[in-house]
């Protein structure tokens, strides 16, 4: 008997170890900043997954936000204010994200936060930031519920006044992909797979609705476990379903192997996904057979926009080790939006940061409007980006190549 209880203890310990890996929070005090004009340092917090599977995107966000702060300093955009970034790693986990949020709130120099990458992480942070009136601008969250409330399909209610994003929502991205797949790629039978996370399942649902509305047929659905690596059982199901295309709601660490294993199982059909799979790591994971796989991503291709040329050049000159990845441009714009809001608050207060800088900056964010890397940056009444452009990318010769840009209209 001793040994069975040992196994039970071990299992409990293993579970404990899982939750303990991301520990160490700090007390959150709701302190207000009291800058005195000359030589104030304003810290822009960055929260993103800097390690683990999604770190390629996370590090791109961190570097791009850092670049925005450096550029603002170089231009001396806000007199007497030096911008700095402080990046924390959320490991794509809501619990870690919330701890990071508390940490940012407790540091009085932090007047705005860029991030996170994952919608599920954002859910855990929103209230912490909103209570502290600390503004948060996400470059990558696409879950509609974050800005428009749980019942966004019937009644839109903005939950948190401090939350903004420069990314487009799944409510637009999913249907946009469905229209492309049905009308342009002429695929009528789809197999829908998601990873059950906030982002993936939301995207899969909006895609499915639009695809059915257009007259397409969903020949199968599957939910995968994001921790798994073996999708052979799912791949065999896809093959036998007779689907012409697979839609995957999720991110590239799973999408890559999934695409590879579906093709290996004998179903030579394209995999279509959202912005979460549009990273170069996808090709590394999916292998040579990924050619023809599609991804939608928010905005026009960063490399093609004249406004983005400068960003790409600056990024290269900045000597960052990692790629700016899918959200680099949006992260830059998110950080720049915070900088613009700080500028407005400082200008309105006679060149000084007011005592309630956080609340003022959150208010000012609503009115921010400028020409950013990704186009015009401004926010609607829910905190969503007003720029609703999307682009379809295809894998060609091991790279994402833009095939069609457009705006989704109803």
């Amino acid at each position, binding site marked *: 008997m001793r040994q069975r209880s040992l196994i039970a203890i071990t299992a409990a310990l293993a579970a404990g170890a899982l939750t303990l890996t991301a520990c160490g929070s700090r007390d959150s005090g709701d302190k207000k900043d009291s800058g005195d004009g000359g030589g104030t340092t304003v810290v822009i917090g960055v929260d993103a997954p800097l390690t*683990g599977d*999604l770190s390629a995107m996370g590090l791109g966000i961190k570097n791009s936000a850092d670049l925005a702060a450096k550029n603002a300093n170089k231009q001396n955009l806000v007199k007497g204010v030096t911008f700095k970034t402080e990046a924390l790693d959320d490991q794509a986990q809501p619990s870690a994200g919330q701890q990071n949020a508390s940490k940012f709130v407790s540091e009085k120099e932090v007047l705005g936060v860029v991030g996170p990458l994952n919608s599920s992480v954002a859910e855990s942070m929103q209230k912490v930031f909103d209570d502290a009136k600390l503004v948060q601008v996400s470059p990558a969250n696409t879950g509609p519920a974050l800005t428009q409330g749980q019942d966004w399909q019937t009644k839109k209610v903005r939950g948190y006044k401090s939350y903004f994003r420069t990314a487009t929502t799944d409510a637009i991205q999913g249907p946009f992909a469905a229209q492309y797949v049905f009308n342009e790629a002429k695929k009528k039978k789809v197999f829908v797979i998601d990873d059950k996370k906030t982002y993936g399942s939301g995207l899969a649902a909006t895609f499915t609705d639009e695809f059915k509305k257009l007259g397409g047929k969903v020949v199968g659905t599957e939910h*995968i*476990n994001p921790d*798994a690596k073996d999708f052979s*059982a799912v791949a065999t199901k896809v*093959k036998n379903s007779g689907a012409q295309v697979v839609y995957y709601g999720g991110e590239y660490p799973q999408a890559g192997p999934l695409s590879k294993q579906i093709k290996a199982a004998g179903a030579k059909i394209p995999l279509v996904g959202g912005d979460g799979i549009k990273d170069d790591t996808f090709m590394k994971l999916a292998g040579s057979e990924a050619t023809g796989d599609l991804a939608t991503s928010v905005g026009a291709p960063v490399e093609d926009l004249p406004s983005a040329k400068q960003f790409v050049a600056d990024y290269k000159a900045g000597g960052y080790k990692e790629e700016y990845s899918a959200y680099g441009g949006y992260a830059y714009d998110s950080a720049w939006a915070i900088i613009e809001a700080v500028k407005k608050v400082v200008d309105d207060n006679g060149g000084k940061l007011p005592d309630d800088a956080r609340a003022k900056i959150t208010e000012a964010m609503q009115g921010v409007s400028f020409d950013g890397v990704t186009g015009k940056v401004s926010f609607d009444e829910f905190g969503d980006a007003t720029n609703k452009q999307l682009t379809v990318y295809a894998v060609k010769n091991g790279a994402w190549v833009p095939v069609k840009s457009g705006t989704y209209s109803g």
Partner: protein
Amino acid sequence: MNELPQQLVNGLLLGSMYGLVAIGYTMVYGIVQLINFAHGEIFMTGAFGALTVWLWLPGGTSMWLALPLMIVGAIIVAVAIAVGAERFAYRPLRTAPRLAPLITAIGLSLALQQAVWAWYPEAKSARTFPQIPGGPFEIGNVTIQTGDIFLVLAAPISMAILAYFVMKTRTGRGMQATAQDPDTAKLMGVNTDRIIVIAFALGAAFAAVGAVAYGLKYGEINFRMGFILGLKAFTAAVLGGIGNIYGAMIGGVVLGVAETLATAYIADIPGMDKFGSQSWADVWAFVLLILVLLFRPQGLLGERVADRA
């Protein structure tokens, strides 16, 4: 089209990999009653050992030439770390209460993960693993990927070698004796310290073979790959009867097939479509584990060391 044969093959392949890793859990447990939670990470370091060899080899080296070297590299790295762990982390705690080495194992597991994350070049996200060239094999309507051929061959061969070693060699019999009763074995002249080191080393070697199979099968490795797989392999070891090396392999195969079939067929049962997707496969695998342990607490094949429990 009937997909059952394909799904069974999918499950068998997945299960063989669980089995290769499970052998390490079961051997160490059988001899020192320690659940070596760092074993999943030893598996992971084996994969990085193989990758290191591949990166050292000049570009364009044939995979058939590289593969044996990679296996040797994987085994060297994994065995070195396992033996080092035994010598410096577990041996000083041999007489300590059982929870002490267990906590040590968990700590070691985290330490190894973080060490690879921090010091292996570009290991902060997934690294690609070389692939065996060539298309898949088709047998009837069953497809076997080229990357899986290694697993198909390696799993039974490893198992046969292990069985021969444990049953026929002097050291193997010493191992059995130590498992049955370490004190008496010592009195009979068996060097138990050496036997324990060999158990760790053998387990690590099989994990290294499994790690190469993992890399070839999925085409990528990362610093966290050992955690989930280690947990699954531990489950397989318990399912088969912990302490029993054949049980580890059987347990692995049963677990792999159960997961695969749950993904493929549970959704077809009327009213169960919500519980059938792959994200539920683990749940069904553990339901199976609970059922087996309810009716056969000693696992499918039973423990070789049941009298000591």
